[in-house]
């Protein structure tokens, strides 16, 4: 088998293994959550009988190991279980976890995708320009701005943006509530502020890594050779340095994209955006365990998938692996 394909399959297998381990950790963590789930769901006034009935219905009376395997078995079939909120005699209709997570995940991916489409090219561009004009005013300016934005808490950035771009200059709206009936353009307009916040948060990290990865290579003999062949400074960076710098850059990009899906809770709360982060926070406070488990698994899968893609980019950018002797 082609060694590259083999390596990728190995990584994929490893990723699935990691996901399994993570699923166990999620279940363990949930076991350790304090508080009585039934009471949290049913309220303090629930009678012991209702509590017992609820526990039987959702299976809390069985051992954690059995519940784990049941849950995993369901997940493998694409069934993430039912929300506790719909269980018991108090709720009228049943709500599947998958149905709750699905639309929220799509919302999150939409916001993340918009932020990534702006942030990644911007970070690469700024990183390359900073490396090209090292120690110039441009380089220092970009560094200072990115350091400020990376050091500020994201809710702070979010409120500053709201204050200036929604209150003082009412260009955008501060509430990013979207509904299925909105057109793409309307959605883009509504999510402008959260997207800008996210861009500000992740651009710095990626830009700094791009700059560092390129500068790190500028001392290589083949870069000097490029100069002695009369290549222009921009060609040196784009043709001679960047192709060898993809590996570290891809890894940082993957981490930041994962953050866009996994770490956006705060931004979602500030802008009341109906994403998966908010769903998970709500579920934790309501002790809606199947939803928490489902969300956690989606987050883990996101991380693993993005890191896998970064690995593939690393392999594909290394001719030693791609074209063995």
């Amino acid at each position, binding site marked *: 088998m082609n060694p590259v394909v083999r390596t990728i399959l190995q990584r994929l297998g490893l990723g699935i293994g990691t996901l399994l381990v993570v699923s166990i950790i999620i279940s363990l963590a949930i076991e350790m959550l304090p508080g009585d789930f039934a009471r949290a769901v049913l309220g303090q006034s629930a009678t012991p009988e209702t509590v017992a009935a609820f526990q039987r219905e959702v299976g809390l009376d069985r051992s954690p190991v059995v519940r784990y395997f049941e849950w995993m078995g369901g997940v493998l079939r694409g069934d993430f279980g039912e929300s506790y909120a719909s269980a018991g005699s108090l709720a009228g209709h049943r709500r599947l976890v998958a149905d709750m997570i699905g639309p929220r995940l799509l919302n999150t991916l939409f916001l993340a995708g918009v932020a990534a489409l702006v942030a990644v090219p911007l970070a690469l561009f700024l990183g390359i320009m900073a490396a090209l004009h090292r120690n110039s005013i441009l380089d220092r300016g970009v560094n200072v701005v990115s350091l400020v934005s990376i050091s500020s808490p994201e809710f702070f950035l979010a409120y500053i943006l709201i204050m200036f771009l929604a209150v003082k200059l009412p260009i955008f709206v501060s509430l990013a509530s979207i509904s299925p009936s909105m057109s793409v353009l309307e959605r883009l307009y509504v999510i402008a502020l959260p997207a800008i916040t996210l861009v500000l948060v992740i651009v710095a990290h990626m830009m700094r890594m791009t700059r560092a990865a390129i500068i790190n290579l500028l001392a290589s003999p083949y870069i000097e*050779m*490029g100069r002695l*062949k009369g290549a222009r400074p921009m060609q040196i960076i784009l043709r001679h340095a960047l192709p060898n710098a993809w590996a570290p850059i891809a890894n940082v990009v993957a981490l930041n994209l994962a953050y866009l899906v996994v770490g956006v809770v705060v931004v979602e709360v500030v802008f009341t955006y109906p994403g998966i982060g908010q769903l998970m926070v709500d579920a934790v406070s309501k002790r809606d365990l199947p939803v928490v488990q489902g969300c956690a698994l989606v987050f883990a899968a996101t991380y693993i998938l993005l890191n896998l893609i970064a690995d593939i980019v690393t392999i594909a950018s290394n001719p*030693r692996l791609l074209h063995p002797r």
Partner: protein
Amino acid sequence: MSETAKPSAGTRTKGDVLLEIRDLQIEGESDEVWRPIVRGVDLTLKRGEVLGLIGESGAGKSTIGLAAMGYARGGCRFSGGSVVFDGIDLRAVSDEARRKLRGSRIAYVAQSAAASFNPAHRLMDQTVEAELREGIRNRTEAEKDAIELYRRLRLPNPEEIGFRYPHQVSGGQLQRAMTAMAMTCRPDLIIFDEPTTALDVTTQVEVLAAIRDIVDQFHTAAIYITHDLAVVAQMADRIKVLRYGKSVEEAPTREMLANPREEYTRSLWSVRKLGKQEQPGGEPILQVKNVTAAYGNTVRVLNDVTVTVPRGRTVAVVGESGSGKSTLARVITGLLPPIEGQVVFDGQALPPALKERAQDTLRRIQMIYQMPDTALNPRQTVYEAIGRPLEFYRGLSGAKKEARIVELLNLIEMDESYVDRLPGELSGGQKQRICIARALAAEPELIICDEVTSALDQIVQEGILQLLMRLQRELGVSYLFITHDIATVRAISDEIVVMFQGRVVQQGPKSRVLSPPHPPYTELLLSSVPEMDPDWLTNLLARRKAQPAAVKAGDY
């Protein structure tokens, strides 16, 4: 080939001045102080002429070579003088004008082609880069021309080699591909910066011949930088000797070789005359018996190798890179357990793996490496580097340890003032001496020297070799001396083992191995060692043409 592509070769006769450097001064920055690297060097090069620049490392050879392109490395700057190339004052014109000259009219061939080719691009893309950028040819023509150059440089598969990546091509081939790359724009001047230093002698012959031919064919002027006199004697019309950034003397090659005027030049010549009287072998201290070894069970690196080292003698192991010399050292030290065969030390078979060996066995076999820079921990002082084996093997501490460290420093002709230095504060030769002292601290009976002088200048080399010989006389230590340098072998060995592709080709006392008749590979190896005679390469090539060698070097 179009007319514009190849500036009329007829006009390029030797005669008019192409490059004129006057009173060149270049400074380098270290610890925020600018210190002179080149101090007032003059240089004149005519069209079609090859000038050899020779000197030890730090003499400023490369800096001057790059200055001829109007280029100063990072941390260096021009501080005086002028560089005039074909009427253009390179120090006065704009960056853009200088950039346009580079690659198209002045080209550069670097020491390590393996490091100087960009790992991310195919050879062809890199070869044609400059001419496409300058619009000299279109891509199809450029590739056709590159293939023609590959052919002229005698690269195997000239049609296809361009479509390989640098890591898929051997060092000798890369060096020739880099020469092809320099030739694409038919520059007026090429700077060759130690282009064969990193190559095996057998490969070096091919590359030297290829470079000489192509420079001749296109009447290109060249500055040929090297520290190897015998090499420069083959390549240059004139030789300029440099030391400490100043010119020592300059003369036509034959004149320079026949009567060097300056004392320093003569000292460069004399290094090769170091020699040792061969002594007959005695009882063996080390016997490597029928060893076969491999990395990862697939590639056999050693095949049925048997080597004996007599006590108190020096056995030199010679062969080109990839012949298994260093692997042999790894087997002896236990770093690589062999698949078959055994290592017998002082009459006892050693356990194959390092961790099964007793501490005292480890003490008795020590190793010195090629690169003292990487063999010494940069954060450990001389005291720590030498003191550690004293503690570990000899259990010394406190005043006893200190006294012994001073003793060892004296033994290697250094003194206690060096005790607190870090490796970064020592010269290359001093660092290698510290490595020797560290090995001696264990009071070993056998020291394996793996290319210990290859990274050093000739004069420093001589000092290290003399030190090793003196230590052997005084302490009776035995050496297994791994090297690819035949001059070193002549200088210090009692017995010689010739290795080729993981096998021992020949083995015996120095006098027998070095005198004819030789087995074919030994013949190839010995005949490839450059000699001071400026006609050596010409004669060798003629001889080889008349009588094709039975063995070819693995590298080309």
